Each structure stands twice: as structure tokens, then as C-alpha cells.
């Protein structure tokens, strides 16, 4: 299996999602706007749930809606992320595996990303993520060296800064959207802010 690249925007939004709901399990979808083949570039993510039970109807609904949006915006769903409420356990739950399987049906190189809650304190040095890929119908740990986060220091700084300034309160996930459908789960406002904070010299964030 090939390399996986995680963009600043995708990482920061996942991070803010986890910060916004520290005592809940949260999950979301990983998207890519690059063409298939070669490295998988996760360029964006859509936060899905935080409080609602991971049952079929809302999950199906979210997957379908995001799918439709992706086809309208030349993106595709390439993975799934989750952070468990119980920070000491970052292994994928049965629900995570099910959703990841579904995604893998449509995209061979799909990835399953678990956020490790125990490593998310402000002084963490390495990205608090554990990634799985599909090998022989099973989800196995991906080689850490095949996971790239360009400009990691900068990404980490942006994530921290936005947390400090309370930007995570503006993050909208699908759950929040269903509670108030005027809220935008594509999080355009946050995307703009992340792009502004990213170094202007860096073209490809």
C-alpha cells in the first residue's frame, strides 16, 4: 500500500472536532480532491457525529449526503476517522470497522484513522494519530513512515492557535447540522481561517 498524505486543513478540523467534544466519541470522513492513483492525499474532512448513537439511519444519511457533495465538488471519500471517548483506548470500535469497510468498497486504498486522545496535550511532539489500511480483508496498522504530514510544526501550531482562540466552537459536524440545519457541515468559514493562518509562502496546503 502506498503513501498517505494528510493536509493541514484535514488535520486541524479533526483536531478541533476532538477538542470541541472531549468527553464524547467523535467521528468523520476523510476526503481527497486529487485524482486516484499514487499517494492518497487527504485534503479535507467532514466531521460527522459526537453524541448521536452510531446507528444505521444517520450514518447512511451522512455518507450519502457527503457522497453527493463530493461528486458536486470533485472530491471523493477516501477514509474515516474516529476518536474514542475513552482516551486510554484508541482501538477501532466495531462501528468504525463497519463504516471503514463500506468506504473501502468504493475506494481500495481507504484509510481508517484513529485519533489517540492520550497524546493530544499541547506539548505533544508527534501527530496523535494511528492509521490503518486494508490488507487481505483486515484492517492492519499502517507503517508510520508511509504517513506524511507536510509542515507538521506549522500544522500543529495552527491547530493549537485556533483551539486557544476558541475557533473550535465554530466547528459544525453533521450532528450539529441536524440540530440546526442552517449550520454548514462543510465548515467553509473554518477552511478560510486555516488557509489564512497557513504560511503564505506555502502553496499547497
Amino acid at each position, binding site marked *: 500500500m502506498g503513501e498517505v498524505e494528510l493536509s493541514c486543513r484535514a488535520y486541524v478540523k479533526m483536531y478541533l472536532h476532538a477538542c470541541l467534544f472531549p468527553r464524547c*466519541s467523535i467521528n468523520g470522513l476523510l476526503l481527497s480532491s486529487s485524482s486516484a492513483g499514487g499517494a492518497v492525499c487527504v485534503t479535507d474532512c467532514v466531521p460527522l457525529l459526537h453524541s448521536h448513537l452510531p446507528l*444505521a*439511519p444517520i450514518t447512511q444519511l451522512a455518507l450519502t449526503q457527503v457522497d*453527493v457533495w463530493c461528486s458536486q465538488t470533485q472530491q471523493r471519500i477516501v477514509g474515516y476517522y474516529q476518536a474514542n471517548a475513552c482516551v486510554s483506548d484508541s482501538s477501532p470500535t466495531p462501528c468504525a470497522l463497519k463504516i471503514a469497510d463500506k468506504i473501502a468498497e468504493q475506494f481500495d486504498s481507504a484509510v481508517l484513522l484513529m485519533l489517540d486522545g492520550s497524546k493530544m496535550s499541547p506539548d505533544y511532539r508527534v501527530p496523535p494519530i494511528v492509521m490503518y489500511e486494508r490488507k487481505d480483508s483486515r484492517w492492519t496498522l499502517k507503517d508510520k513512515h508511509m504517513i506524511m504530514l507536510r509542515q507538521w510544526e506549522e500544522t500543529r501550531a495552527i491547530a493549537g492557535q485556533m483551539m486557544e482562540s476558541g475557533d473550535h466552537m465554530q466547528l459544525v459536524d453533521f450532528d450539529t447540522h441536524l440540530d440546526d440545519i442552517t449550520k454548514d457541515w462543510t465548515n467553509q468559514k473554518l477552511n478560510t481561517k486555516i488557509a489564512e493562518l497557513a504560511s503564505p509562502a506555502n502553496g499547497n496546503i
Partner: protein
Amino acid sequence: MASVSEMYDVGWEEMRDKLRKWREDNFRNSEQIVDVGEELISEHGSKLGDDIWIIYEQVMIAALDCSRDDLALTCLQELRKQFPDSHRVKRLSGMRLEALERYDEANKHYDAILQEDPTNTAARKRKISILKAQGKSTEAIRELNEYLEHCINLLIVFPCDFHSYGKAAFCLEELMMTNPHNHLYCEQYAEVKYTQGGLENLELSRKYFAQALRLNNRNMRALFGLYMSASHIAASPKVSAKVKKDNMKYASWAASQINRAYKLAGRGTKENKCSVKAVEEMLESMQITMS
């Protein structure tokens, strides 16, 4: 007063075995347990080995039943010495406080346990029974709700077997009974039924999504749920023409309500256009599979 061993001509081993049998069969013959247990502990304690701890627990509970607080306290103190940090022993402390009607202190004990271990169902149950004993039925119901919600969460996030969703549905049935106006429980129940699958469950889920909407017509999850369940039923080859027709009606009603809600929400906000379009297309794409 003659001792138990004298009265019944039994040795200490038989007394110990009797206590074990009563434990295993869950007998609450507290007076007998107190008589046999007290003598066994005081006369033959050193012979019991590690069994003595579970006997202390058994005798303590029985002593509370018989208002023998002196005996209960003795047993409790021995257990505390041996197992200083145990939640199980803390729960016994709480039970003793309950028996003495020192409810506030008992609650503090249980809260301390739950602070360290939110999954401790025994502590939650004790809190509920305290509220009932104090006649605080509203609060008891609230605690019961929390307890059930917690169970549901565990059952759904970590379904341990085929029956986990069924058990979650049962918890939700309880919640709906004690909270009939709560649209969220209705809607969650509908979701569990939908997830369980099969025609019968889908029809139930549709009914409960509809009920949730009656209780709160702005519950978007219920609206989408109604749309999805009705669509699936209408698409099923096993239903009669009438059922198909009815469900297509429900589905198209739900679809129009959804579209309307999104159009209203999208007014004035440029950023919402993507959602509105996404929903429209989604509803269309689902309809194709239906026919």
C-alpha cells in the same frame, strides 16, 4: 444461648458450606445467615482461609437486614482493612449508610465510585433506590433515564452479541414508557429498529419516526428517518400494492418537508447552498433505487 453447632450438631465445614449454598442460590434468609455466619467467623475464622472475605460480605449484608449494625460494622471494617481501595467495599459502605438512612453520605460514596468508574452499574442502581426510598420519584426517574441511556450507549457502541440491539431497544421501550413526551427517545428507538433491519422492524421504525415528528415536528433526524424507512418499505418486493402505495406517500411527504426545511434554512446564507443542493440530489438518488 446454645451455639448453632451445638443446636444442629454441625461442624464448621458444614456451616461454611451452608453459607456457600445460600450465596450461590441467592437466598436472603438473613437471620440464619447472621446466626451461622457470626459464629463461624468468631469461632473458626482462622480456618476459613480466603473464603472469609466473601463470608464477611455475605454476613454484613444479612446483618443490615436484621438491623445488626454492630455486626455489619465489624465485617465492614475487616473488609476495609483488607481491600482499602475496592469499589465493591465502598458500595457495601454505601449500603450500610442507606440502612442507617444516612442517604446524603451514602450518595457521596456512590458518586465517588462513579467518578472513578462511570460504568459501575451497581452504584447507579443504589442511587436510584435511595431516591425511591426518599420518595423523590422525579429524581429517581431522571437517574433511571441516565442509567438506561448509559446502557444503551454501551450496547450500541460495543455490541457484544446478536442481541445487543434488541437489549438497547428494550431499554428505550422503558424510557419511552416513563417519558412518553420525549421525542428523542422515540426517534432513537426508531433508529435502533431501522438498524436491526427486516421488514417488520422497518415498519416499526417508520411508525416511531412518525411519532417522534408528532411530538416535535422540527426533529430533522426523525424526518429523514421517516423518508428512509418509508422508501425502503415501498421498495421491498414483499409488500402488498397498498402498503407500497402508502409508504410512497409517506416518503414523498417527508421529502417535500425536507426540501422545504432546507430551502428555508438556505435563505440568505450563501454558504448553505451546498447543503440544499446536496439534499435535493440525495433525495433524488434514493428515489431511483426505490422504483
